[in-house]
């Protein structure tokens, strides 16, 4: 089913007599498998408002991300939270939609500095599990009118409602960028370098380690980027080389899309921890022979392990129970995804709250049932 209006979508949900699998572009096929009739948002397209001077854009959920990015680029603007293209990593096809980006809180390397998709989503319209059209937030940057259901809906993976329209804050594309790189650091020293750079006044917008290379990004006006890159190089990042322009951009695009793991076998985890805990966690998981990419100053770990047994779920989550954080199994075989909770199980009191919220938003339990776990 591919309704073309919000009202039609609401009717479909109201009339549904069984579970529905909510799909946008289908490029972020993550989560427990949902055996249900697909309901697509791809028919709800169109950018309904764009005010570059107010840094705001409103689009229907099924609008291709690429269309939005192209329109923004024409005005020198972009989605600053850097949503990734997961197709190569996950082996999916299709066209990412803005609704999918928001429903999955898809956020890239710049999250460490500017925020995640949840921080750029200003308002949502959605249809709940009973077919009611609801709205929350709006299209202004500061809004504390009532509860912030925008945050709740962002990253709810279609389990609370089906997004029909989202309002976003956008930002200017900086004049230029540069990346400071270093090839001979251990994970520990790399994370220490990242912490030093992020703790400097030089407005670092990316701090990562990929393919054994530490990468620190600065963006902005040309003169300012040159100044800050030099200041870092002469200060906390001595011995680092400077990569500029397209070469710099490619590094971050590859990181954003987890390119080093695309086309390689195995299960892939996305783990969020306190940055300084990252290297030790990976070392403790040595039994899994993992390959790791560190983003977010060390706090986001993309971990590739053999897709065998529980793909390391117990080991990883037992460790996280001690140090805090969460792990999502973003890529694995259907069998593993069925056997292992893909999303990090919440502690009991929070699981109870989440379950309670789902029961209110979707009392019949028909929207992506089980996708995020119980």
């Amino acid at each position, binding site marked *: 089913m591919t309704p073309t209006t919000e009202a039609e979508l609401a009717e479909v949900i109201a009339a549904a007599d069984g579970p529905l699998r909510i799909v946008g572009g289908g490029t972020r096929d993550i989560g427990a498998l949902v055996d249900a009739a697909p309901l697509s948002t791809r028919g709800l397209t169109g950018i309904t408002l764009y*005010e*570059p*001077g*107010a*840094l705001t854009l409103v689009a229907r959920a099924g609008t291709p991300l690429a269309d939005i990015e192209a329109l923004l680029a024409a*005005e*020198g603007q972009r989605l600053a939270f850097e949503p990734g293209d997961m197709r190569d990593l996950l082996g999916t096809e299709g066209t990412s939609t803005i609704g999918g980006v928001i429903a999955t809180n898809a956020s890239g390397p710049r*999250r*460490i500095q500017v925020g*995640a998709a*949840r*921080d750029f989503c200003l308002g949502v319209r959605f249809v*709940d599990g009973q077919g*009611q059209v*609801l*709205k929350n937030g*709006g*299209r*202004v*940057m*500061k809004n*504390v*009118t*009532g*509860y*912030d*259901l*925008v*945050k*709740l809906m962002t990253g*709810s993976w279609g389990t*609370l409602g089906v997004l029909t329209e989202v309002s976003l804050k956008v930002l*200017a594309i900086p004049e230029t960028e540069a990346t400071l790189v270093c090839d001979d650091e251990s994970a520990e020293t790399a994370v*220490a370098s990242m*912490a030093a750079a*992020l*703790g400097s*006044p030089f407005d670092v917008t990316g701090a990562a380690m990929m393919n054994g290379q530490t990468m620190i990004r600065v963006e902005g*006006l040309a003169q*300012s980027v040159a*100044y800050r890159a030099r200041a870092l190089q002469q200060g906390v990042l001595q011995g680092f080389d400077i990569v500029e322009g397209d070469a710099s951009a490619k590094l971050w695009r590859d990181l954003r899309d987890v390119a080093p793991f695309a086309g390689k076998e195995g299960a892939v985890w996305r783990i*969020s921890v*306190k*940055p300084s805990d990252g290297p030790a966690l990976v070392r403790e998981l040595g039994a899994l022979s993992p390959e790791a990419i560190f983003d*977010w100053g060390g706090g986001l770990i993309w971990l590739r392990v053999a897709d065998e047994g529980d793909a390391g779920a117990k080991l990883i989550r037992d460790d996280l129970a001690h140090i*805090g*954080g969460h*792990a*999502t199994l973003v890529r694995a075989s259907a069998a593993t995804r069925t056997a292992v909770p893909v*999303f990090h199980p*919440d*502690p009991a*009191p*929070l699981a109870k*709250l*989440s379950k309670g*919220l789902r029961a*209110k*938003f979707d009392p019949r339990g028909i929207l992506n049932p089980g996708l*995020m776990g119980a």
Partner: protein
Amino acid sequence: MQMPTPDAAILARKDHIVTRLQAVLPDGAVVHDPFETRAYECDALTAYKCPPLCVVLPGSTAEVSAVMRVCHEEGVPVVPRGAGTSLAGGALPTADSVILGVARLNGVLETDFANRIIRVQSGRTNLSVTGAVEEEGFFYAPDPSSQLACAIAGNIAMNSGGAHCLKYGVTTNNLMGVTMVMADGEVVEIGGSHLDAGGLDLLGLICGSEGQLGIVTEATLRILAKPEGARPVLVGFDSNEVAGACVSDIIKSGILPVAIEFMDRPCIRATEAFAGAGYPDCEALLIIEVEGSDAEIDDQLSRITQIARTHNPVELRESTSAEESAKIWLGRKSAFGAMGQINDYMCLDGTIPVSELPLVLRRIGEMSKEYGLDVGNVFHAGDGNMHPLILFDANKPGDLEKCEAFGADILKLCVEVGGCLTGEHGVGVEKRDLMVSQYNQNDLEIQLAVKDVFDPNWLLNPAKVFPLSSTETRRAS
């Protein structure tokens, strides 16, 4: 302002409830003498007052939990209170409620510069969070005007902003985790030292929920490295439209100032008389601040002044020193005090799309004449968060009511043009009844359903945020 009729049965049990609360708290942590509870009868929305049943001042999460268990068992409403600086009446008590003040929860639990976080107890004041990290070159970004006094607990409850959130975001963008006591006393941890949620974003839901979903006792906050420097430029215009267009052009140019503040003529005149900052006597004035090294600041300010010049400003004053910066900010920072010198005032907080600025200012001017009440506008122009200050005389019968009606009309206008009722102050009691102008019954019902999940008995700050008629049956149950 209508508040629910106090529950006579609770009032009658006051001694019993006080005794039970005293049993779980240290000496002096329960304030019940009617003379002393008067200190808690209102917050910064002083037009409405009501002493609470009693006040508790717990000193730990465990004590908050014990208080909540007692109140849950006794069926007593609890009104959480940070520092009592709410302009929306968020901490206004009812006679049958217990005020839970977090003032004694003011410690720093952990600072972690490598991970750029600080963990504090929620009663700590906003400015003293920065105070705890500034020696190491860090700061906590959200900066509400009341930051010297306001508590992190209240910042989280209202999702507070400030002048610098154009670049750094508001509280929700800088909050990483909370320890929260639920209505029944259960203690939960949400988020922590890592980013984002593994499941549903409950933290995002808690922030801005006005103390209706739980009592936040501890918070993990993101701290940022202080920029090398900051300097403003002041630009005066002879029309609001042109000033608005200038704001839009600056933003479109790709420069992201940390702050763009706007003042209109009535406000400029009042602050000039009060503070003597040397502002030009013009229709509209912008203060635009940028950050970085000296050279970076020069570069950005020269781009901004270039844009401003295309709009024929009547005055353009670029700061070249800390002294000049302080002088430029002096008027803006004294604006509220200056307006308060003239008369009592009500401070509004609607947000509008930046493009609607000229229209909204014109309409406010027209309404000001219709109502016969003066109004000055001072606000965060970069993000459209307006703070119209309506002047009235509290001692003149009918003036407050007239002022409230005028304020309501302005806020409805904000919603009509695509904005919202409140950008950073919260709904509280002040804008409760206007919620229906922004949200329809279903939009409100789903929010009430969220509260049902967290606080099934509706004991946490129950008479706030939503129109009383829409919550009546829930509060009664």
